[in-house]
């Protein structure tokens, strides 16, 4: 594929991906879209929703469409770090006994960490290196994970007993936190037809790892105007209540704000979105579209917000509006 094809064919490739996934995923268009943004941008995604919404199925379909090795880790409280990273095992060979490294489920391109909040902090921490560095260190030896590499985690917002909330450091490693909504009646009907009836549709391979990497490289070249970038950066800064001249909503409802990774996430995924819209530059609209998913897991509401019943979505919407007016 030539450079020109990469650039001008990006939107078509994206559309093909989305359509293919839609064969097995009814509705959830926004979820699918954000997932693809993050995957193309090279980030990890945290999916949050009640059980039975198809979160795991979505990841499976994605791996099939992208033709990437997939592994699923069901996190439980007794899961140990070695269970996911792999460990050295003793094997008998012709020359004698020796240790051989048995790769854990992290050694895949797409790792589905189901109910990640059930695992102990120690096990959760084992994911940190993999998510950030794309490598695993066991017994002092660092092993690289395959590229592209994504960790798609899920968590259940309802069952909080026996769970270990993810630490802020780990949450910050996720590019997006995508809320999976309950399907509408029409979507539910479609799901029934697809899953219970005999629809026969199955998503096929659309592209491979190289294509995905090329798409990532292409997205990174999308130019962004200084004013647009400044808008994104000011948005992140406005989430810090201790900063001067921040909107009142930050000062009143936020305990702490987003890290610079949030700004990186916003700009990377905005670039992807711009290309999917047929544009070759990032706009304010792109920033406003991806910002909520980038920020909702990186901010924390304070006691005032909790007592007043103010949601994170409300705070983020208000921040977007205040920054838009200031611009």
């Amino acid at each position, binding site marked *: 594929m030539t450079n*020109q094809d990469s650039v001008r064919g990006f939107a078509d490739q994206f559309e093909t991906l989305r359509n293919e996934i839609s064969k097995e995923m009814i509705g959830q268009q926004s979820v699918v879209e954000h997932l693809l943004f993050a995957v193309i941008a090279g980030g990890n995604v945290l999916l949050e929703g009640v059980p039975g919404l198809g979160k795991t199925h979505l990841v499976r379909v994605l791996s099939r469409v992208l033709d990437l090795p997939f592994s699923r880790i069901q996190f439980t409280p007794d899961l140990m770090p070695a269970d996911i990273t792999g460990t050295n095992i003793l094997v008998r060979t012709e020359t004698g006994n020796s240790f051989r490294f048995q790769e854990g489920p992290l050694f895949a391109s797409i790792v589905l960490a189901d109910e990640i909040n059930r695992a102990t902090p120690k096990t959760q921490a084992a994911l940190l290196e993999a998510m950030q560095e794309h490598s695993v260190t066991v017994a002092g030896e660092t092993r690289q994970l395959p590229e592209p590499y994504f960790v798609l985690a899920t968590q259940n917002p309802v069952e909080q007993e026996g769970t270990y909330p993810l630490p802020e450091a780990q949450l910050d490693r996720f590019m997006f936190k995508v809320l999976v909504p309950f399907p509408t009646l029409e979507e539910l009907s479609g799901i029934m037809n697809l899953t219970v009836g005999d629809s026969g549709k199955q998503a096929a391979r659309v592209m491979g790892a190289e294509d995905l990497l090329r798409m990532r490289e292409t997205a990174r070249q999308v130019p962004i105007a200084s004013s647009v970038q400044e808008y994104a950066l000011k948005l992140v800064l406005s989430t810090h209540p201790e900063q001067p001249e921040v909107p009142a909503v930050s000062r009143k409802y936020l305990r702490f704000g987003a890290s610079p990774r949030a700004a990186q996430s916003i700009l990377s995924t905005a670039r992807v979105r711009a290309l999917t819209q047929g544009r070759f530059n990032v706009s304010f609209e792109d920033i406003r579209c991806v910002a909520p998913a980038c920020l909702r897991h990186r901010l924390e509401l304070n006691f005032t917000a909790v007592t007043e019943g103010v949601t994170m979505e409300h705070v983020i919407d208000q921040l977007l509006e205040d920054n838009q007016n200031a611009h």
Partner: protein
Amino acid sequence: MLRCTAMGFALGSAVSLALVIVSFLTPVADKWRMIGFFLPAAMILCGAGGAMYRVRDRDAARTADACGLQERTVTALETLSAHDDGIAREMRDAQLQDTCDALEHLDLKKIRPGSVRLMLAAGLITCGLCAASLLIPNVRDQEAMHDRTLREQLSQASTEIDAAAKTDESAMNEKEAAALRRLTEELKRELVDSRDEVDALVAVDRAEKRLEEIRQTTAADAMQALANALQAAGLDTLAGCLGDEQALAEALSGMDAETAEMLEQVAEDLSGAAREAAQAMASSRQTDQSTSGNGQQNRMEDAQAAASQAVRTLQSGSTGATQQALQQLKSAMNGTSGTPDQSGSSGQSGTSGQSGAGEQSGRNEQSSGAGTGSSNLEHQPTSGSNSGGKGNNPPGYREGKYETIYDPERAEVLTRDETTEQHAGEGDSVQVQIGEGKGTLEGDVPYGIVLREYSDSQTRSAERENLTPEQRTWVAEYYRLLTEDNGQ
């Protein structure tokens, strides 16, 4: 350019409104003319400035992007000079082409003239406020108009005085003509510098005084010239009677035809007042010459009339036209001020207890030469409203130049207790202040004219008011002393 023109309109309207507001505080001449000039001038200047202003590329790009281009133009502008390779270059080229396509299809109607509308609306509102100000009575506008009328009046009067002076100069000698010219020039300067009718009247009064001196000089010269001419013609008797009207009448009553002819010849050789006097004297001969009683009586009457006219003509000198022009100006100023015959009662001491009620009758008694009077009041005080002293002035009253003359504040205060009849036996008395007033009797103030009117009207008021005899005596004594001090 449209935006700048709208800005000029808003700015011009704002300045116009400010000017209208200022005009309510101080008189502004030709206010609406200034607004009519400034408003379009501001629009034209700002519009021209806007046309010449080079719009920055970035501003133009932002404006285009705001029409739905989604930051294409701004991004293209920033990446225009970038030098990339590979995918980056391909991306930049694609972005530039995408931007050009979008600009080509840009609907210019989408460009929001928000600020233009806002400025136009602001300008229209302020213009509306300016127009609405016409519904509010503006005293200052009236003052400005009055001032303009006064200027025009004074300018016209200056021209008329100039023409009249030229007429009088023709009958004067060089020295007298030069003095008259100086007088008229100075008067014209003072009229130009006059702030109001009072200043103009002061200038006219001053000119009248000086004109009187010139009149006396020209009258003396005319008499001397006529006397010399009569003596040269051998009419010594008539020459000796010129200063005495009665003696002249007697001499003329017995004049024969030969003498009358000689008088006519003398008149031909003279000019101005001397000539007119000689002609008047010569005309007395043309009466019934019968020796009957009626004829003698008629001749005597004619001679009396001729002598009176001759004397009057000689005394009037050669300043008649200028004097008349000054009188006309004076009348015009008094008519413009609206209160021609009011005394300066606002400066009176409060102890006199006088009101302005009796002052109206003074208007009709001007034949004594008091003139039409001068006033330092702009508005007619209502009866009883002016109780004298400062601080009790009627609405609209404006302090004039005469105020200092009648300042009740005394330099050296002496007091005297006056016990009136009504208070006799009760131990009560009225304390009156006597002593010289603070004002000065010198300078250019027509004190003589004003004092005569003042004295007459106050005395008549005292007679009409319900005063005790002692109070009346006190008023009369007061003015007697005042006029005595002024040598009248």
